[in-house]
């Protein structure tokens, strides 16, 4: 496109940083504690169960899982075929499954097609393979702009795509969760799966970056 778009020059949200000040935080912590007390008192959950949930998502799950899926797809053609046919089952072969990944679809980047994933309505994201999403993925600027001006958003991330490439944006409006299979970088033919996995970033699996070369 020839026109230069200035939408990304609009000032960012002036409210969000202010929410992290002492008094606002204290009130939020009080509200959270009140709900937790109620849930425990009403016998719905134990405190230990809540602690374990935090631990799983803060420590155990993360994009290193998705990186293993990608590295295996790059080195094992049969696995890649299964991944593109039935991603949920193929990903489960590696031991990854569950909440917010019950219905996986893998979308493959090629020289002709570049995929990028969003949830415009909220923040849906494939937790079993990528862990929890970064704040930018969940906030208004990305959710609103990537569907209407994906090339500008990708350029802001440092990813420039030519006019001959088809950009596909996937809006995760249901429980289907999308993982981008990035292109394998050139010159990596002699790397093993572990070394390849180390090149695969979270952002590449969302579709806003390419793997490290």
């Amino acid at each position: 496109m020839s026109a230069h778009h200035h939408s990304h020059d609009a000032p960012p949200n002036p409210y969000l940083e202010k929410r992290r000040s002492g008094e606002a935080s204290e009130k939020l912590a009080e509200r959270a504690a009140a709900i937790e007390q109620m849930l425990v008192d009403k016998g719905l959950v134990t405190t230990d169960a809540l602690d374990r949930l935090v631990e799983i998502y803060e420590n155990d799950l993360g994009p290193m899982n998705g990186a293993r899926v990608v590295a295996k797809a790059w080195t094992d053609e049969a696995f890649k075929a299964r991944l593109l046919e039935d991603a949920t089952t193929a990903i489960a072969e590696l031991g990854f499954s569950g909440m917010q990944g019950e219905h996986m679809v893998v979308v493959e980047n090629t020289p002709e097609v570049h995929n990028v994933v969003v949830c415009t309505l909220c923040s849906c994201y494939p937790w079993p393979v990528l862990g929890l999403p970064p704040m930018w993925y969940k906030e208004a600027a990305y959710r609103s702009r990537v569907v209407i001006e994906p090339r500008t958003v990708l350029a802001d991330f440092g990813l420039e795509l030519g006019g001959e490439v088809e950009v596909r944006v996937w809006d995760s409006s249901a429980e289907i969760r999308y993982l981008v299979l990035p292109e394998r970088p050139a010159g990596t033919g002699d790397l093993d799966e572990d070394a390849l996995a180390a090149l695969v970033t979270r952002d590449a699996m969302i579709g806003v970056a390419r793997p490290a070369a």
Partner: protein
Amino acid sequence: MNGVHDLGGLTCFGPVVPEADEPAFHEDWERRVFAMTLASLGGGLGPVDAFRHAIERMNGTEYLRTTYYEHWLAALETRAADRALAEAPRADEPLTVEGVEAAVPAGAPSERDEGPAPRFAVGDRVRTLNLNPRGHTRLPRYVRGRVGVVASCHGNHVFPDTAAHDAGEAPQPLYSVRFEASALWGPEAPARDALYIDLWDSYLEPAT
């Protein structure tokens, strides 16, 4: 509902601002809110669809000026009130660590064996209806009244528009539909680009 959460296509929010070395949680109360939400989904506070809708029910201005986990906290409070949790009798069995260890890898699939047969097949041209429900929907405004092509069929899935309102799962066919960027955004959109979105059967009608 037509809420400010339905952001697709707006260009007024400025740059995407990634945070370097961002932690999963910025404050401890966020951890607790996160865990409480996961522990409650599909259980004491109802289905995930009702939780999402509880966020949508926030005042629009409040939604835009508060942080992500503040939305979850507001939804927890709303759902607890919806369910009259404060007056409810104590449940028999709480979710325990063992329960968490089982629930996380199992998840909660939305696909169901029940429901009608699909009306559309891969390759069919479809038009999204101009639906403007006051309750929960997963049909964003930017794709209402647009013509696209069915790219794949996902089987029957729980229908959020009813599930969010205790009106039943009502599973129906779910499709991945492809829209050319020009069909959504006008003739200046890059000619090759497209958007794919998952849409339920009742959001669609045939298009010629």
